[in-house]
């Protein structure tokens, strides 16, 4: 697995949300994008997963330029996303949400059960709630479901958009612990976070985004100690994680 984004520009109409960003994600890494509201983090992830079209530049995944590949085909290639705000299907049960996590399957039964087993091992809570409607889960449970559902497709690259959003500190700890665990089993992760403290502790490398540009790129541990980053993203609001 290797993701290489070169000089990416993304537009909403005339507004340029991403202004020439280049980033690399290598096999086995957790790479995090941090930055203030409106910096373009969600737009970056949506462009990688195919929900936003590329304005110019390229997205190379495993040696193939996927800029023109549609979103549902990128799932086949091994890119899954847990979207901002979790995107649970409220009217479907937990099990149905998980089942649809990989819509296109050649060998349905055996593969599906194996994947369900994996997800339930990571998130035992989901197993207890498998018959409950997605819309009635608590915020933390919904986040678990969003991540579990993305894992159903056995992604090589997992895109996570603010998994800590709106969660209590205990649950944030829990979610980040599981993210690290997912990474240990070989899944590469591109993580977007407002909660820079947690993200930088868990990630290997980090990029700091400001209004559509990368302003800093470094090892995550270095950024944790960087005075400028501390002031901007960790200072007073280190554990806030509000939105």
């Amino acid at each position, binding site marked *: 697995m290797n993701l290489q984004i070169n000089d990416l520009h993304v537009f909403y109409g005339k507004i340029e949300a991403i202004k020439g960003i280049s980033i690399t994600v290598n096999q086995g890494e957790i790479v995090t994008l941090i930055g203030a509201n409106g910096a373009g983090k969600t737009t970056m992830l949506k462009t990688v997963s195919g929900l936003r079209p590329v304005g110019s530049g390229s997205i190379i995944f495993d040696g193939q330029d996927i800029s023109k590949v549609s979103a*549902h085909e990128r799932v086949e290639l091994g890119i899954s996303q847990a979207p901002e705000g979790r995107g649970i299907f409220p009217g*479907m049960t937990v099990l149905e949400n998980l089942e649809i996590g990989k819509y296109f399957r050649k060998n349905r039964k055996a593969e599906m059960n194996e994947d369900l087993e994996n997800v339930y091992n990571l998130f035992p809570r989901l197993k207890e709630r498998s018959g409950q409607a997605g819309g009635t889960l608590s915020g933390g449970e919904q986040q678990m479901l969003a991540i579990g559902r993305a894992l159903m497709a056995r992604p090589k690259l997992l895109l996570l958009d603010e998994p800590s959003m709106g969660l209590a500190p205990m649950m944030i700890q829990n979610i980040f612990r599981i993210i690290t665990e997912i990474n240990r089993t070989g899944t590469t992760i591109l993580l977007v976070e407002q909660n820079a403290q947690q993200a930088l502790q868990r990630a290997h490398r980090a990029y700091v985004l400001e209004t559509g540009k990368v302003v800093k790129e470094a090892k995550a541990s270095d950024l944790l100690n960087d005075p400028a980053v501390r002031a901007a993203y960790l200072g007073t609001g280190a554990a806030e994680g509000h939105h």
Partner: protein
Amino acid sequence: MLNIRDKGAEIWEGWNRPTRSTFVIGLIAVVMMLPYAGNFSFTNILNTPISSYQAVLVYPVGMFVLMALGLNIVVGKSGLLDLGYVAFFAIGAYTAAIMGTHFHWNTWECLPLGMALAMLSGVLLGLPTLRLRGDYLAIVTLGFGEIVRIVAVNNPSIGGPNGIANVPNPPKTLGVSFGLDHMESFFWVVVIMILLIIWMVRRFTARRPGRAWEAIRQDEDVAALMGVSTLKYKIWSFSIGAAIGGAAGVIFASKSMYVAPDMFSFNISVLILSCVVFGGMGNIWGVILGGTLLAYIPERIRFISNARQFVFGVALVLIMNIRPDGLLPRKKREKITKAGE
């Protein structure tokens, strides 16, 4: 408030297979006998005062239910707002009229062609517009509905504003005759088509296309992230709905023996959409109920003449205020599980 849908589902769940089969067959038999209801003193309250009761059962009642079921696949199941559904009805009707008068095809030969042409126009319209979100589709379909009608008005080769007369009735089939004095046969055909659609929709809903539509309706972006080819499934839903509209058009033309552009106005699109919304979007039983009531009641109260549209409109507004999700809304599982916790 009494939840008829859940009550009904509960009773149904409690039955074993033979009971269910008996009930379904009995219900179909009763529905098939409806055209004769006007003849008996204890059911003749159903009689419509001005138009022939048997004709009303075919159009608007049967046709509206048929089209509402078709539109429900588009609007209710996959959440695509189609404001020009009448276009497909018109395409089916004109296919039957042209093929029947110029080439002497019989109705059953016209039926697959009418459906195919409606479906094809659905695909051609859907390919560019279904890529767009929300309101665009509503506007484009609204325009398409009007364009089809205006093309018919301005095209002398298909009768222009006068339309096409002398569309043949269906031939005698399996011993059943069709004609002005045999309206019950048309009704039976429509009921059979409705049954086929119910069967098809139920199968789809339980299986993968239904899941994909449901996901698209709830959140299209997330559906794509799950690997659902959203464009493909939207086009399927849109064109299956179109084909059903086309089928209704073919039967309509062969029943009324005459088609003209003003039969296919924007009003029809709105009425069919109202049937879906009023009955309960996404729930076939609700849609059938909505179609039946919205088609039948204005005919039944025709004796109050011009005021009937007004009275009916006020009643609709009132009922939609009391039951905003329709008479028999789709199952809302998020609420049910919560209550059961």
